């Protein structure tokens, strides 16, 4: 990062009126923010209104953006030849990610939907992994209870599923 670069901040405003200030470059991780700034909006004191995302969720998203922006900036500044350090930093960031996303389902859901709306690919990916991880090894009925989904198969459809994949129901796999 060039030292003489002016520091530009943007403000994100949550659906319940909370404001979060962060470096514009950190906020640019979001495709939605990028689009807004590209059309010349959002730099004013009113900030960028983020609909449908509460302050509680947005604060987490801001933490994620700051962390990943700082890590990327540090990696840029590093000596390119120092491979070992790069690998170590990457590993550190991954561990931070894992801890960051170690949330219960409701919060994870909020962040996933927020990250998706804001277009933060890295965070969407992280949330999807965590969600998938929570589903691993679970039975269909466990998932239904967990996610509040109703079993809406007709009896014919259920018979068809059992016919198509008999092993799905067997205990041996």
């Amino acid at each position, binding site marked *: 990062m060039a030292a003489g670069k002016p520091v530009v901040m943007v403000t994100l405003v949550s659906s319940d009126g909370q404001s979060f200030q962060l470096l514009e470059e950190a906020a640019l991780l979001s*495709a939605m923010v990028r689009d807004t700034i590209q059309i010349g909006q959002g730099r004013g004191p009113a900030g960028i209104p983020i609909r449908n995302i509460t302050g509680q969720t947005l604060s987490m998203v801001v933490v994620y953006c700051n962390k990943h922006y700082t890590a990327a900036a540090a990696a840029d500044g590093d000596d390119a030849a120092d491979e070992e350090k790069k690998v170590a930093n990457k590993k550190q960031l991954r561990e931070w990610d894992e801890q960051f996303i170690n949330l219960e*389902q*409701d919060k994870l*859901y909020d962040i*996933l*939907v927020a990250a*998706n*709306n804001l*277009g933060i*690919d890295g965070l*969407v*990916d992280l949330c*999807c*992994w965590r*969600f*998938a991880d929570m*589903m*691993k*090894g*679970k*039975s*269909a009925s466990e*998932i*239904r209870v967990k*996610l*509040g*989904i*109703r*079993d*809406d*198969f007709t009896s014919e*459809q*259920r018979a068809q*599923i059992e016919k*198509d*994949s*008999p*092993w*799905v129901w*067997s205990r*041996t*796999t």
Partner: protein
Amino acid sequence: MALRNQHSSLCGETGTALPAAVSVALPSDVLFEVLLRLTAKDLCRLRAVCRTWSALTFDPTFVAAHATRHPGPLLVGGVLDFQSFPSVDILLMDLSGNVVKRIRHAGTHLVLPTHHDLLCVTEAYSCKASLLNPVTGAVCALPETLSRIHARRRVLSDFDGSFYYGRDSSGVCKVLRSLTDYNQRLEQFFEVLTLNASSPMQWWEADSLPMFVRTEPTSSAIVKGVVYFLLDGRANGPNDPPELEIDLLARFDLKTEEWLPFLRGPVSCHPELSEIDDILNEPYVLVVDEHLALSELNDVLVVAQHTGFRSTTRDSFLDLWYLVDSEKCLWERKYRFDLELSIHEDGCYFAKAHASLILDDGRILICIYVGSNFPGQYTRRVVRLYDPETQTLSSDLVDVRNVHSIGFYKGSLLSLQNGGRLLSLCP
């Protein structure tokens, strides 16, 4: 990963989310991404959650995306079940040896080392064979009859059958079989069967060869619609055994259903590269086993030449010969590597090894068969990965003592179309 077209909450649309529950109705594009990260094994189970999830995971777009994200073939192993003999469990395993799926199959069948949309399973010392769809578990038994001409003078029970399932050069699925009579008259016949909807399945006779082809699974390979065979050295019928090179290859074109001229193998084409004295830098007093195996890697015929020593001090090695031009009969030895026999044990020796499959990243799956000197003990099947870039061999991916045959499956376990259409043609 751009997930912009959101808000069509999938579970919400179909009204399946219970309002009282935590109501985690993931937007459809997000649900797509989440499910993409699960293994085929998990997904097949979670299809039963609700209609939406079921529809999504059967969707061809999803199946294709899932295959891209989870590449890598599955190992297919046959495990005999002695408790309910004769019956075999066919295990589909990922490359770490985790069982993804288990299919119960009647009979003492062997899985052939093919990797098509359907698995060909066959029974040793008989003429029974079936095609099996690994997705549905559906089975289609091949007819246990002789072709009309052969039936005039022989009966099927005279023979041991070996089967070769593949597509001809225009994509038609066919099965070639060799019928070998080792006991009475030393005869070997060939018959072909076409899988199509318009006619019932029937074996048709093909020409015989003047000599026997080898019938064990690693002695043949199907490349671009041509079945290649190693020869056995015996004459077919009452003639004198012909003089021939050990690596001469017979070729059967599945489309014309005729034999092509013999092909000279790599060892006889390059005698200068196979001198055992050049390999051993000091005079060894060893028994040297040479073994050839055929396989198809990315549409190229590969001969794996295994040189083994009956010694615990000298490592055996594998040469991979690629047929770079079949018209001009040009062979190139691309790789030679030690098999790193740290797993040498008392009473075991390395019987044979062959290259089975090439992965998308260029690594090559190597199957090693560890024979045992103890009667009654199973041959171990060890699978390792050779990385040509780093020239290293991985440690064992799978080491299963009770798997008695191993094959591969490259298709998706999620798609019912895969091979299903073919099986529905069968009576």
